[in-house]
């Protein structure tokens, strides 16, 4: 500190709050300036110009030696705006390179590196590999993010479609119920002309489709057996216990059903509702007789 102060030679009082932007000085690249120039600063113009004359090259040195280009800076660069600052440097470099290349061309000296000229580079191949890896990783990251975004949007869209479908389904159901009601009314009005045969059911619907249980006969599968008769075969193939099953047991299983939901088997279907064949009709008169 002492040393610096002497080199600095400013003699600034410590309590003097002339330093601006004290919040940001911890950050690298930010720097603090005095808000007003110090009065004691030395500025020996003659000495500077004298020294410049001492060290400078002769005036008529060719461009080939100097290789320096002066580029006009259009306006003051805002230092704290990284983007514009870097852009200003970039344009300066670009303009300089263009001017230099045109000069080279006018002189007629080779300046472009031929494609078959290989030589040591400033950065090693290993380092450039790292750079490449990083670029690729970044690219991949961007792509993945893009994909995720797309998936999210798709999901949203799918949800909407799903809602739409459900609405449609509900609507259809309503319509069907309505149509059934209509049909009932009509039937009432016409005095149950069609009787209770199944065929009429299906004809009455608007779309001509019959509402019925899938009546596909599955051979060897008990009604209501949801496994599709696979219990029998699977059972046969299964463990030891099933192997020992007797043949007639297997037959009976397939005939009367084994496994699956019991409830459905015992429910009435539209066919069996009015089917009284299974009832023992002889019971009724017997009872009457007994009563009498």
């Amino acid at each position: 500190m002492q040393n610096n102060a002497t080199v600095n030679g400013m003699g600034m009082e410590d309590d003097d709050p002339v330093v601006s932007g004290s919040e940001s000085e911890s950050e690298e690249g930010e720097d603090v300036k005095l808000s007003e120039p110090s009065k004691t600063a030395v500025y020996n113009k003659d000495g500077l110009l004298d020294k410049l004359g001492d060290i400078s090259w002769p005036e008529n040195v060719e461009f080939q030696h100097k290789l320096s280009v002066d580029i006009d800076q259009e306006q003051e660069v805002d230092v704290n705006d990284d983007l514009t600052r870097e852009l200003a440097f970039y344009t300066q470099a670009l303009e300089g390179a263009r001017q230099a290349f045109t000069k080279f061309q006018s002189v007629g000296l080779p300046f472009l590196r031929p494609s078959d000229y290989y030589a040591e580079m400033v950065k090693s191949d290993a380092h450039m590999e790292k750079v490449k890896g990083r670029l690729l990783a970044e690219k991949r990251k961007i792509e993945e993010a893009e994909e995720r975004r797309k998936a999210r949007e798709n999901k949203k869209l799918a949800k909407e479609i799903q809602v739409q479908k459900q609405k449609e389904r509900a609507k259809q159901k309503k319509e069907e119920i309505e149509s059934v009601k209509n049909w009932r009314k009509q039937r009432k009005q016409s005095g149950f002309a069609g009787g209770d045969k199944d065929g009429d059911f299906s004809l009455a619907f608007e779309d001509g489709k019959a509402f019925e249980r899938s009546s596909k006969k599955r051979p060897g599968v008990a009604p209501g057996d949801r496994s599709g008769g696979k219990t029998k075969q699977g059972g046969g193939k299964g463990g030891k216990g099933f192997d020992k099953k007797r043949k007639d047991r297997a037959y009976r299983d397939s005939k009367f059903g084994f496994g699956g939901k019991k409830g459905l088997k015992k429910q009435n279907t539209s066919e069996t509702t009015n089917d009284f064949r299974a009832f023992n009709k002889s019971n009724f008169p017997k009872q009457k007789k007994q009563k009498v």
Partner: protein
Amino acid sequence: MGNKRKHSEAEAAVDVKKDDSAPERPKRTLLGFKNSDEDKKENDSFRVGFRNKEKVLVTCSRRISFRYRHLMLNLVDLLPHCKKDNKVESKESKGTALNELVELKSCSSCLFFECRKGKDLYLWMAKCPNGPSVKFLVNAVHTMEELKLTGNHLKGSRPILTFSSNFDKSPHWKLLKEMISQIFGTPKDHRKSKPYHDHVFVFSIADDHIWFRNYQISCPHGGAQKLDRGDLEKMTLVEVGPRFCLNPIKIFGGSFGGPTLYENPFYVSPNQIRSLDKRQKAGKYAKKVKAKTRRKMHELENPLEVDEFADMWNE
């Protein structure tokens, strides 16, 4: 190459002489026929008359941090005409030591990276042996190792130096420009330099700081050494690094010393900044304590009146 041309021209001159005067055998030397004095002068002025023999010594102080050391090594990579030397102890007498070292290495200028307190980097740029020299504070250092800087170029190809126009505004900038262009420009036909130009240095003054950038020039071309307008338009640059920003502190008349020619009137040393910052932070607690005691005193001075309705609801 120059020698060959000299040779042939000398011969031509000899032919002319043969014509108009008595045959006088020219003396032979190792390089060919020796010319008469007039011819020699003519030839010299026709040739270069100027040869850049700049040699830069690059060193750093002891206890330099790795980042700044890497910056120095990057600069060593960029300047084929430099000589790197061992670290130098940074003390009061370093100026004379460095001057001696530069002379010993037969260099004509010096870049000395001085690291203080392991965090502040100062760069001395000096023309030896008789000045001038500049001391910079280096900010915003990015080394070439950073993966964000994706460019690459030939090691030892001569850079194109570009200066922003505000270098010509005032004498001290002019002097700095001359020094920078001498130190950073690779001499023509330097034995370690490569013949093509594929990178460009930027020196730009913004906010009274000199900003340095290094870009690779990538220019599409069809193998031939010709570019048309379109190729120039298509030229793009890729940054190679390193980056740094120089804040000039002082310019001295001699090398590493001598009369001060310029002082940056706006400069505040990082030590002062830190101490100020610390003082501000230190004041916080004292202020709090002060406020507390003041409050206490105030309360003692103005006691609250006893509230006559205080017990109203307690009955």
